[in-house]
């Protein structure tokens, strides 16, 4: 082995000219070590992603007759609160009138946030899109919700109107199983 070292030094250009076989071996070995490191690291990183049982709790069903007009019910879905709000005709009229309001940060019409034929029910995830607090029902300047943490105001369609939150309250994937039953998730 020692002899081969002497030989390669002879052929190796000190100015960093042509790569020789030894350079190739260095690079190949280094690349293999990095690849092996990444393969070992991946399961250690991936174990922190949601486990199978956590992902299995993906959907729930809810009976809409439990919500009275003008009120909301908070249900827990995937560890997060979901607001199911039965809006009064006055609230509904106001949010539809505000569909083109200039202060909407994320312009959306109320119709885009509800299901056709079920406009009086609003289903949104009850986490403020700023930093995840649960907004207070019926408070704030727009009659929807007010987030006590950093002062975001939402209207009765869950749209952000004022404050640091960047987005409207998120509408989860849900479907009507019947007129009074929804499946969330």
């Amino acid at each position, binding site marked *: 082995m020692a002899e081969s070292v002497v030989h390669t030094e002879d052929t190796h250009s000190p100015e960093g000219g042509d790569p020789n076989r030894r350079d190739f071996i260095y690079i190949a070995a280094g690349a293999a070590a990095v690849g092996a490191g990444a393969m070992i690291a991946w399961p250690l*990183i991936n174990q*922190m*992603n*949601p*486990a199978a049982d*956590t992902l299995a709790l993906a959907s729930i069903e809810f009976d809409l007759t439990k919500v009275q007009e003008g009120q909301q019910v*908070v249900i*827990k879905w*995937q*560890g*997060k*609160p979901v607001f199911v709000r039965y809006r009064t005709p006055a609230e509904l009229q106001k949010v539809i009138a505000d569909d083109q309001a200039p202060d909407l940060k994320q312009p959306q019409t109320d119709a885009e946030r509800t299901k056709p034929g079920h406009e009086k029910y609003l289903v949104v995830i*009850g986490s403020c899109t*700023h*930093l*995840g*607090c*649960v907004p*207070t029902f019926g408070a704030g300047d727009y009659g929807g919700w007010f*987030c*006590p*943490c*950093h*002062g975001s105001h939402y209207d009765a369609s869950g749209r952000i109107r004022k404050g*640091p*939150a*960047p987005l409207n309250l998120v509408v989860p994937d849900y479907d009507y199983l019947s007129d009074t039953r929804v499946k969330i998730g």
Partner: protein
Amino acid sequence: MSDHESTYVPKTGVEKWLDTRLPIIRFGADYMSLPTPRNLNYWWTFGGILALCLMTQIVTGIVLAMHYTPSVDLAFASVERIMRDVNGGWLIRYVHANGASMFFIAVYLHMLRGLYYGSYKAPREMIWIIGCVIFFLMIATAFLGYVLPWGQMSFWGAEVITNLIGAIPVLGEPILIWLRGGPAIDNATLNRFFSLHYLLPFAILGCVVLHLWALHAAGQNNPVGILIPKDREKKDMLPFHPYFTVKDGFAIILFLILFAIFVFYQPNALGHADNYIPANPLVTPAQIVPEWYMLPFYAILRAIPDKFGGVVAMFSAIGVLFVLPWLDTSKVRSMRYRPTMRTFFIIFLVVGFGLGWCGGQLPDAPVLGSFKTFTLVDGDLNSYLWLTRVLTAYYFIFFLIIMPLVGLKEQPLPIPATISEPVLTGADAVEQKG
């Protein structure tokens, strides 16, 4: 100082035997006889105090882990059991909880000492940078630990802080889910936070070893800020023991008195009452505030109207400390000889306290009285929002503009050639308070 000659002479046969095999006694003896600048004042005692704090947290923490259960259903009850049923559990938990606050009091004073006396300047950049790493790890550890009792503040603090990561464009959401181990803060989150809260203090301990290694390679700074010439070492230096072990020891006793006052008379003064309510994912407390030691950074976060911008500003507030050695253009270390810079430093202190105060208030609340002035952009001028913004601006201007500029423009006072000169000529008397 790294070339400090060993004066240790092994006496007994056992010591001689050990000295050729594992010179650990020599290592300790050399450490204790290390030449130390004789003019170090009490601001230099926080290193020892911080070592004590770290050991206190590790020892009480290991004991608490023997009784704590990291599960969303049992965590809160297990902490209450520690408080009520475990022998002396209340004491151990109060020492651990207040110990975190004491640790931060000491670390802030230690950092301000470094800032005032220019301890971060060449050749001590690495000491400072490792110190910043320790500070960052301390914040992370304290945050993780605060989640463990699984009270309302624990839960919602975790919710808000992990959501900061969600503000990162594109990658934020997958990283957030990865970090929490699910779509929301839940059992998986609590378990990993417990694991990491146990791990990080040992990472801090490792960094402390590097911090001390760097300190002994570059040598200690001193209130005058000059490098002590080799030929003056005999006159200007004293062995660490007994001169500074005694000085540190006295400071530690005073510090422990303060510590004990909190533990025995005001154990919950620095905490938040809402954390004695079990975590409820469906109800947010009326006001979420972090622990006092994070309030200035929390204030900076809220000062920026944009979500991601706020996160960037908050991390920049810590990040800027890392490059401090290259932002300060002055060759003079100690601010004793930099009157202009000292004025800006005092304003910085006031701003720091101000940010802490603002971080604990509702952003829309008025600062003075209860009247409205006029609305500027998105908030009333007489609100904590705008006060916080002004203070945040100064925080960054201090580091990014004042530091480089004042260093180039100012006329520093004459610097003494030796550390004994100001004492002998009486020039030190003017500036005793340091």
